[in-house]
Protein backbone atom coordinates (compact mmCIF):
# COMPACT_ATOMS: atom_id res chain seq x y z
CA UNK A 1 0.00 0.00 0.00
CA UNK A 2 1.16 3.53 -0.76
CA UNK A 3 1.60 5.49 2.47
CA UNK A 4 1.95 9.23 1.90
CA UNK A 5 3.92 11.19 4.47
CA UNK A 6 2.89 14.86 4.64
CA UNK A 7 4.96 17.82 5.81
CA UNK A 8 5.76 17.45 9.53
CA UNK A 9 4.70 13.82 9.58
CA UNK A 10 6.24 10.32 9.92
CA UNK A 11 4.92 6.92 8.90
CA UNK A 12 6.01 3.35 9.40
CA UNK A 13 5.57 0.59 6.84
CA UNK A 14 5.58 -3.04 7.96
CA UNK A 15 4.24 -4.96 4.95
CA UNK A 16 6.38 -6.02 1.98
CA UNK A 17 4.14 -4.18 -0.47
CA UNK A 18 4.11 -0.95 1.56
CA UNK A 19 5.64 2.05 -0.16
CA UNK A 20 6.38 5.13 1.90
CA UNK A 21 6.53 8.32 -0.11
CA UNK A 22 6.96 11.99 0.68
CA UNK A 23 6.52 14.61 -2.02
CA UNK A 24 8.12 17.93 -2.63
CA UNK A 25 10.93 18.37 -0.16
CA UNK A 26 12.22 21.90 -0.64
CA UNK A 27 14.22 23.06 2.36
CA UNK A 28 12.63 20.26 4.38
CA UNK A 29 14.43 16.97 4.88
CA UNK A 30 13.16 13.46 4.31
CA UNK A 31 14.75 10.75 6.45
CA UNK A 32 14.15 7.13 5.41
CA UNK A 33 15.29 4.25 7.63
CA UNK A 34 14.96 0.54 6.90
CA UNK A 35 15.84 -2.66 8.72
CA UNK A 36 16.68 -5.48 6.24
CA UNK A 37 16.01 -8.24 8.81
CA UNK A 38 12.84 -6.98 10.46
CA UNK A 39 11.71 -5.68 7.02
CA UNK A 40 10.31 -2.53 8.48
CA UNK A 41 10.80 1.00 7.25
CA UNK A 42 9.99 4.54 8.35
CA UNK A 43 9.90 7.87 6.57
CA UNK A 44 9.98 11.29 8.22
CA UNK A 45 9.43 14.70 6.60
CA UNK A 46 10.61 17.43 8.93
CA UNK A 47 10.48 21.10 8.09
CA UNK A 48 12.61 22.90 10.65
CA UNK A 49 15.73 22.13 12.67
CA UNK A 50 15.00 23.23 16.18
CA UNK A 51 11.81 23.09 18.25
CA UNK A 52 12.98 25.71 20.73
CA UNK A 53 11.45 28.39 18.47
CA UNK A 54 7.96 27.11 19.28
CA UNK A 55 7.47 24.55 22.04
CA UNK A 56 3.69 24.42 21.57
CA UNK A 57 4.00 23.43 17.93
CA UNK A 58 6.52 20.76 18.92
CA UNK A 59 3.93 19.29 21.31
CA UNK A 60 1.24 19.31 18.62
CA UNK A 61 3.48 18.22 15.76
CA UNK A 62 6.71 16.64 16.99
CA UNK A 63 7.62 15.59 13.45
CA UNK A 64 7.79 19.22 12.35
CA UNK A 65 11.25 19.58 13.90
CA UNK A 66 14.44 17.54 13.55
CA UNK A 67 15.31 17.63 17.25
CA UNK A 68 11.94 16.20 18.33
CA UNK A 69 11.05 14.20 15.19
CA UNK A 70 14.19 12.18 14.51
CA UNK A 71 14.58 10.56 17.97
CA UNK A 72 10.86 9.81 18.01
CA UNK A 73 11.03 8.08 14.62
CA UNK A 74 13.86 5.84 15.82
CA UNK A 75 11.96 4.98 19.01
CA UNK A 76 8.88 4.11 16.98
CA UNK A 77 10.66 1.79 14.55
CA UNK A 78 12.36 -0.10 17.41
CA UNK A 79 8.86 -1.13 18.50
CA UNK A 80 8.63 -3.14 15.28
CA UNK A 81 11.82 -5.09 15.95
CA UNK A 82 14.25 -2.85 14.11
CA UNK A 83 17.78 -2.62 15.50
CA UNK A 84 19.89 0.51 15.25
CA UNK A 85 23.03 -1.28 14.03
CA UNK A 86 21.15 -2.88 11.13
CA UNK A 87 19.41 0.25 9.90
CA UNK A 88 20.01 1.65 6.43
CA UNK A 89 19.66 5.43 6.65
CA UNK A 90 18.94 7.87 3.82
CA UNK A 91 18.59 11.64 3.90
CA UNK A 92 17.36 13.85 1.08
CA UNK A 93 16.23 17.48 0.75
CA UNK A 94 17.62 20.58 2.43
CA UNK A 95 17.60 22.74 -0.70
CA UNK A 96 17.39 26.50 -0.49
CA UNK A 97 17.18 29.66 -2.56
CA UNK A 98 20.40 31.62 -3.09
CA UNK A 99 20.79 34.28 -0.42
CA UNK A 100 24.09 35.89 0.57
CA UNK A 101 22.67 37.09 3.88
CA UNK A 102 21.84 33.54 5.03
CA UNK A 103 18.37 34.58 6.18
CA UNK A 104 16.71 31.90 4.05
CA UNK A 105 19.28 29.18 4.85
CA UNK A 106 16.73 26.82 6.38
CA UNK A 107 17.84 24.00 4.08
CA UNK A 108 21.40 24.23 5.32
CA UNK A 109 20.34 24.44 8.96
CA UNK A 110 18.17 21.38 8.42
CA UNK A 111 21.19 19.49 7.07
CA UNK A 112 23.53 20.60 9.83
CA UNK A 113 21.31 19.50 12.67
CA UNK A 114 20.77 15.97 11.41
CA UNK A 115 24.48 15.48 10.78
CA UNK A 116 25.17 16.61 14.33
CA UNK A 117 22.48 14.35 15.78
CA UNK A 118 23.66 11.31 13.80
CA UNK A 119 27.30 11.95 14.67
CA UNK A 120 26.49 12.18 18.38
CA UNK A 121 24.44 8.98 18.27
CA UNK A 122 26.72 6.96 15.99
CA UNK A 123 24.28 6.66 13.14
CA UNK A 124 25.92 6.25 9.74
CA UNK A 125 24.16 7.60 6.69
CA UNK A 126 23.98 5.01 3.91
CA UNK A 127 23.25 7.47 1.12
CA UNK A 128 22.18 11.07 0.81
CA UNK A 129 21.19 13.64 -1.74
CA UNK A 130 21.00 17.07 -0.14
CA UNK A 131 21.37 20.76 -0.88
CA UNK A 132 21.21 22.60 -4.17
CA UNK A 133 18.08 24.31 -5.44
CA UNK A 134 15.98 21.32 -6.44
CA UNK A 135 12.73 19.94 -5.18
CA UNK A 136 12.81 16.24 -4.25
CA UNK A 137 10.42 13.33 -3.79
CA UNK A 138 11.58 10.16 -2.01
CA UNK A 139 10.01 6.69 -2.00
CA UNK A 140 11.00 3.76 0.23
CA UNK A 141 9.85 0.26 -0.69
CA UNK A 142 9.45 -1.64 2.56
CA UNK A 143 9.77 -5.14 1.05
CA UNK A 144 13.04 -4.54 -0.80
CA UNK A 145 14.50 -1.54 1.01
CA UNK A 146 14.81 0.09 -2.39
CA UNK A 147 14.91 3.90 -2.18
CA UNK A 148 13.94 6.01 -5.18
CA UNK A 149 14.56 9.69 -5.62
CA UNK A 150 12.78 12.05 -7.99
CA UNK A 151 14.25 15.48 -8.54
CA UNK A 152 12.23 18.40 -9.94
CA UNK A 153 12.22 18.27 -13.72
CA UNK A 154 14.21 15.03 -13.94
CA UNK A 155 13.27 11.38 -13.95
CA UNK A 156 13.23 9.03 -11.00
CA UNK A 157 16.46 7.25 -10.04
CA UNK A 158 17.49 4.72 -7.45
CA UNK A 159 19.30 6.43 -4.59
Amino acid sequence: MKLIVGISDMKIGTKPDDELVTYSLGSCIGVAIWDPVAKVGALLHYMLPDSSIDKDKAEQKPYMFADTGVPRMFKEIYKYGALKERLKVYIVGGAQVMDDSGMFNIGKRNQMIIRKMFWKNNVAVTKEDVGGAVNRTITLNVGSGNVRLKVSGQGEVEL
Partner: protein
Amino acid sequence: MSRVAEILNIANHIPPFPKVAMQVMRMLDDPRVQAKDLAAVIQYDSAITANILKTCNAAYFGLPRKVSSLDEALVLVGQNILKDIIIASSSARFYQGVAGNGYQLEQGELWRHSVATAIMAKSISPHFRGVDPGAAFTTGLLHDIGKRFLSSFVANDFQRIMDRTYVDGMAFIAAEHEILGMDHAELGGLILQKWDFSEEMIRAVQHHHDPYALDLEPLIALVAMANTLVISAGVGVGAGGLTGAMQGEGLKRFSISGADLERYLANLILEMERAEEMMALSN
Protein backbone atom coordinates in the same frame (compact mmCIF):
# COMPACT_ATOMS: atom_id res chain seq x y z
CA MET B 1 2.90 35.86 -34.92
CA SER B 2 5.94 36.06 -32.64
CA ARG B 3 5.73 34.14 -29.40
CA VAL B 4 5.52 37.25 -27.25
CA ALA B 5 2.71 38.52 -29.47
CA GLU B 6 1.00 35.17 -29.10
CA ILE B 7 1.29 35.32 -25.30
CA LEU B 8 0.06 38.92 -25.22
CA ASN B 9 -2.83 37.91 -27.41
CA ILE B 10 -3.83 35.28 -24.87
CA ALA B 11 -3.46 37.81 -22.06
CA ASN B 12 -5.81 40.13 -23.90
CA HIS B 13 -8.45 37.45 -24.13
CA ILE B 14 -8.33 36.40 -20.49
CA PRO B 15 -11.81 36.43 -19.00
CA PRO B 16 -12.44 39.37 -16.69
CA PHE B 17 -12.09 39.01 -12.93
CA PRO B 18 -15.67 38.36 -11.74
CA LYS B 19 -17.58 41.64 -11.84
CA VAL B 20 -19.49 40.73 -8.71
CA ALA B 21 -16.25 40.49 -6.73
CA MET B 22 -15.01 43.87 -7.90
CA GLN B 23 -18.35 45.46 -7.11
CA VAL B 24 -18.48 43.92 -3.64
CA MET B 25 -14.92 45.06 -2.91
CA ARG B 26 -15.89 48.62 -3.74
CA MET B 27 -19.04 48.36 -1.65
CA LEU B 28 -17.05 47.11 1.33
CA ASP B 29 -15.11 50.35 1.38
CA ASP B 30 -18.36 52.16 2.12
CA PRO B 31 -19.19 51.94 5.84
CA ARG B 32 -22.91 52.43 5.22
CA VAL B 33 -23.22 49.22 3.21
CA GLN B 34 -25.26 46.50 4.88
CA ALA B 35 -25.25 42.74 4.58
CA LYS B 36 -28.48 42.72 2.56
CA ASP B 37 -26.96 45.10 -0.02
CA LEU B 38 -24.02 42.75 -0.41
CA ALA B 39 -26.25 39.71 -0.67
CA ALA B 40 -28.29 41.41 -3.40
CA VAL B 41 -25.14 41.69 -5.54
CA ILE B 42 -23.39 38.43 -4.71
CA GLN B 43 -26.35 36.12 -5.26
CA TYR B 44 -26.22 36.78 -9.02
CA ASP B 45 -22.97 34.84 -9.25
CA SER B 46 -23.88 31.33 -8.23
CA ALA B 47 -20.31 30.02 -8.39
CA ILE B 48 -19.08 32.71 -6.00
CA THR B 49 -22.06 32.19 -3.70
CA ALA B 50 -21.39 28.45 -3.55
CA ASN B 51 -17.70 29.04 -2.89
CA ILE B 52 -18.40 31.55 -0.13
CA LEU B 53 -20.54 28.98 1.62
CA LYS B 54 -17.87 26.32 1.20
CA THR B 55 -15.02 28.46 2.48
CA CYS B 56 -16.46 30.54 5.25
CA ASN B 57 -16.80 27.51 7.50
CA ALA B 58 -13.06 26.81 7.34
CA ALA B 59 -11.61 26.98 10.84
CA TYR B 60 -9.09 29.45 9.44
CA PHE B 61 -11.75 32.18 9.37
CA GLY B 62 -12.77 31.48 12.95
CA LEU B 63 -16.55 31.92 12.71
CA PRO B 64 -18.39 31.18 15.97
CA ARG B 65 -20.82 28.73 14.35
CA LYS B 66 -21.55 26.89 11.09
CA VAL B 67 -23.14 28.94 8.37
CA SER B 68 -25.61 27.60 5.81
CA SER B 69 -26.92 30.61 3.90
CA LEU B 70 -25.38 33.61 2.21
CA ASP B 71 -27.34 36.08 4.35
CA GLU B 72 -26.19 34.37 7.50
CA ALA B 73 -22.58 34.35 6.30
CA LEU B 74 -22.62 38.04 5.49
CA VAL B 75 -23.97 38.96 8.89
CA LEU B 76 -21.54 36.76 10.78
CA VAL B 77 -18.34 37.41 8.84
CA GLY B 78 -16.42 40.58 9.61
CA GLN B 79 -15.76 42.94 6.71
CA ASN B 80 -12.06 42.27 6.47
CA ILE B 81 -12.44 38.53 6.45
CA LEU B 82 -15.31 38.82 4.00
CA LYS B 83 -12.95 40.46 1.51
CA ASP B 84 -10.55 37.53 1.77
CA ILE B 85 -13.36 35.02 1.36
CA ILE B 86 -14.77 36.80 -1.68
CA ILE B 87 -11.40 37.11 -3.36
CA ALA B 88 -10.66 33.42 -2.77
CA SER B 89 -14.15 32.43 -3.90
CA SER B 90 -13.80 34.48 -7.08
CA SER B 91 -10.22 33.50 -7.97
CA ALA B 92 -10.62 29.74 -7.66
CA ARG B 93 -12.17 29.42 -11.15
CA PHE B 94 -8.87 30.46 -12.74
CA TYR B 95 -6.95 27.69 -11.03
CA GLN B 96 -9.19 24.75 -11.88
CA GLY B 97 -8.03 21.57 -13.60
CA VAL B 98 -4.42 21.23 -14.66
CA ALA B 99 -3.74 24.97 -14.45
CA GLY B 100 -0.04 24.54 -13.71
CA ASN B 101 0.84 21.34 -15.57
CA GLY B 102 3.43 23.07 -17.82
CA TYR B 103 5.34 23.77 -14.60
CA GLN B 104 4.92 20.13 -13.56
CA LEU B 105 2.42 21.06 -10.90
CA GLU B 106 -0.16 18.34 -10.29
CA GLN B 107 -3.84 19.18 -10.38
CA GLY B 108 -4.73 21.60 -7.60
CA GLU B 109 -1.10 22.35 -6.71
CA LEU B 110 -1.01 25.85 -8.20
CA TRP B 111 -4.08 26.79 -6.18
CA ARG B 112 -2.66 25.19 -3.06
CA HIS B 113 0.53 27.17 -3.49
CA SER B 114 -1.48 30.35 -4.04
CA VAL B 115 -3.66 29.87 -0.95
CA ALA B 116 -0.60 29.04 1.16
CA THR B 117 1.12 32.21 -0.06
CA ALA B 118 -2.01 34.25 0.71
CA ILE B 119 -2.15 32.82 4.24
CA MET B 120 1.55 33.46 4.77
CA ALA B 121 1.29 36.98 3.31
CA LYS B 122 -1.50 37.85 5.71
CA SER B 123 0.29 36.43 8.76
CA ILE B 124 3.46 38.39 8.15
CA SER B 125 1.68 41.63 7.22
CA PRO B 126 1.99 43.24 10.70
CA HIS B 127 5.74 43.56 10.03
CA PHE B 128 5.12 45.67 6.95
CA ARG B 129 3.89 49.04 8.03
CA GLY B 130 1.30 50.58 5.76
CA VAL B 131 0.36 47.31 4.05
CA ASP B 132 -3.30 46.35 4.34
CA PRO B 133 -3.62 42.68 5.39
CA GLY B 134 -6.38 42.20 2.80
CA ALA B 135 -4.13 43.51 0.02
CA ALA B 136 -1.43 41.13 1.24
CA PHE B 137 -3.85 38.18 1.11
CA THR B 138 -5.15 39.07 -2.36
CA THR B 139 -1.72 39.63 -3.87
CA GLY B 140 -0.48 36.39 -2.34
CA LEU B 141 -3.41 34.58 -3.88
CA LEU B 142 -2.82 36.05 -7.34
CA HIS B 143 0.98 36.33 -7.51
CA ASP B 144 1.36 33.25 -9.75
CA ILE B 145 -1.70 33.84 -11.94
CA GLY B 146 0.70 34.28 -14.87
CA LYS B 147 1.57 30.57 -14.59
CA ARG B 148 -2.01 29.63 -15.35
CA PHE B 149 -1.79 31.30 -18.74
CA LEU B 150 1.88 30.63 -19.53
CA SER B 151 1.64 26.95 -18.66
CA SER B 152 1.12 25.64 -22.21
CA PHE B 153 3.98 27.77 -23.56
CA VAL B 154 6.30 26.43 -20.88
CA ALA B 155 5.18 22.89 -21.74
CA ASN B 156 6.08 23.42 -25.41
CA ASP B 157 9.63 24.53 -24.62
CA PHE B 158 10.03 22.59 -21.42
CA GLN B 159 13.32 20.84 -22.13
CA ARG B 160 15.04 24.02 -23.29
CA ILE B 161 13.91 25.89 -20.17
CA MET B 162 15.03 23.02 -17.94
CA ASP B 163 18.45 22.85 -19.63
CA ARG B 164 19.02 26.57 -19.15
CA THR B 165 17.96 26.17 -15.51
CA TYR B 166 19.66 22.99 -14.38
CA VAL B 167 22.53 22.65 -16.88
CA ASP B 168 23.48 26.31 -17.20
CA GLY B 169 22.46 27.31 -13.67
CA MET B 170 19.96 30.04 -14.50
CA ALA B 171 16.96 30.88 -12.33
CA PHE B 172 13.91 29.13 -13.79
CA ILE B 173 12.10 32.43 -14.22
CA ALA B 174 15.07 33.90 -16.11
CA ALA B 175 15.13 30.87 -18.42
CA GLU B 176 11.39 31.28 -18.93
CA HIS B 177 11.97 34.89 -19.91
CA GLU B 178 14.86 34.15 -22.21
CA ILE B 179 13.14 31.38 -24.12
CA LEU B 180 9.54 32.60 -24.19
CA GLY B 181 10.27 36.34 -24.22
CA MET B 182 7.98 36.68 -21.20
CA ASP B 183 7.90 35.19 -17.70
CA HIS B 184 4.99 34.38 -15.39
CA ALA B 185 5.63 37.33 -13.06
CA GLU B 186 5.57 39.84 -15.90
CA LEU B 187 2.48 38.24 -17.43
CA GLY B 188 0.83 38.16 -14.00
CA GLY B 189 1.37 41.91 -13.71
CA LEU B 190 -0.31 42.46 -17.09
CA ILE B 191 -3.26 40.32 -16.02
CA LEU B 192 -3.74 42.23 -12.76
CA GLN B 193 -3.56 45.44 -14.74
CA LYS B 194 -6.27 44.19 -17.09
CA TRP B 195 -8.33 43.20 -14.05
CA ASP B 196 -7.97 46.69 -12.64
CA PHE B 197 -6.12 45.86 -9.44
CA SER B 198 -4.05 48.58 -7.78
CA GLU B 199 -0.65 49.67 -9.07
CA GLU B 200 0.88 48.49 -5.79
CA MET B 201 -0.45 44.95 -6.30
CA ILE B 202 0.58 44.89 -9.95
CA ARG B 203 4.15 45.77 -9.00
CA ALA B 204 4.21 43.17 -6.22
CA VAL B 205 3.21 40.45 -8.70
CA GLN B 206 5.74 41.63 -11.31
CA HIS B 207 8.61 41.64 -8.82
CA HIS B 208 7.91 38.56 -6.70
CA HIS B 209 11.04 36.78 -8.03
CA ASP B 210 13.27 39.86 -8.12
CA PRO B 211 16.38 38.94 -6.07
CA TYR B 212 16.27 42.40 -4.51
CA ALA B 213 12.51 42.44 -3.92
CA LEU B 214 13.05 42.73 -0.17
CA ASP B 215 14.66 46.14 -0.70
CA LEU B 216 11.66 47.46 -2.64
CA GLU B 217 8.24 48.77 -1.54
CA PRO B 218 6.65 46.99 1.44
CA LEU B 219 4.00 45.01 -0.49
CA ILE B 220 6.62 43.78 -2.98
CA ALA B 221 8.90 42.69 -0.13
CA LEU B 222 6.01 41.04 1.68
CA VAL B 223 4.84 38.93 -1.28
CA ALA B 224 8.40 37.94 -2.20
CA MET B 225 9.07 36.83 1.37
CA ALA B 226 5.80 34.89 1.60
CA ASN B 227 6.43 33.15 -1.72
CA THR B 228 10.02 32.27 -0.78
CA LEU B 229 8.89 30.71 2.49
CA VAL B 230 6.09 28.71 0.85
CA ILE B 231 8.54 27.45 -1.79
CA SER B 232 11.02 26.53 0.97
CA ALA B 233 8.25 24.51 2.61
CA GLY B 234 7.84 22.71 -0.72
CA VAL B 235 4.20 23.69 -1.25
CA GLY B 236 3.35 23.78 -4.97
CA VAL B 237 6.92 24.21 -6.18
CA GLY B 238 7.04 22.29 -9.46
CA ALA B 239 9.81 22.21 -12.06
CA GLY B 240 11.38 25.53 -11.06
CA GLY B 241 12.48 24.09 -7.74
CA LEU B 242 14.22 26.61 -5.49
CA THR B 243 16.30 28.12 -8.27
CA GLY B 244 17.08 31.81 -8.25
CA ALA B 245 18.13 34.19 -5.55
CA MET B 246 16.27 36.11 -2.87
CA GLN B 247 18.60 38.40 -0.96
CA GLY B 248 17.41 38.34 2.64
CA GLU B 249 19.34 41.38 3.82
CA GLY B 250 16.30 43.60 3.22
CA LEU B 251 14.29 41.76 5.91
CA LYS B 252 16.20 43.59 8.65
CA ARG B 253 14.48 46.80 7.58
CA PHE B 254 11.20 45.16 8.66
CA SER B 255 12.69 43.78 11.93
CA ILE B 256 12.34 40.20 10.72
CA SER B 257 14.90 37.66 11.96
CA GLY B 258 15.78 34.15 10.81
CA ALA B 259 13.95 32.74 13.85
CA ASP B 260 10.85 34.71 12.81
CA LEU B 261 10.97 33.02 9.41
CA GLU B 262 11.02 29.61 11.07
CA ARG B 263 8.13 30.52 13.37
CA TYR B 264 6.04 31.64 10.40
CA LEU B 265 6.79 28.37 8.61
CA ALA B 266 5.73 26.40 11.67
CA ASN B 267 2.45 28.34 11.75
CA LEU B 268 1.83 27.88 8.06
CA ILE B 269 1.40 24.12 8.28
CA LEU B 270 -1.29 24.40 10.96
CA GLU B 271 -3.04 27.27 9.20
CA MET B 272 -3.13 25.29 5.97
CA GLU B 273 -4.84 22.46 7.81
CA ARG B 274 -7.39 24.94 9.13
CA ALA B 275 -7.99 26.24 5.61
CA GLU B 276 -8.70 22.88 3.94
CA GLU B 277 -12.11 24.06 2.66
CA MET B 278 -10.41 26.93 0.86
CA MET B 279 -7.72 24.61 -0.52
CA ALA B 280 -10.45 22.40 -1.97
CA LEU B 281 -12.08 25.21 -3.96
CA SER B 282 -10.26 24.52 -7.23
CA ASN B 283 -11.34 20.86 -7.29
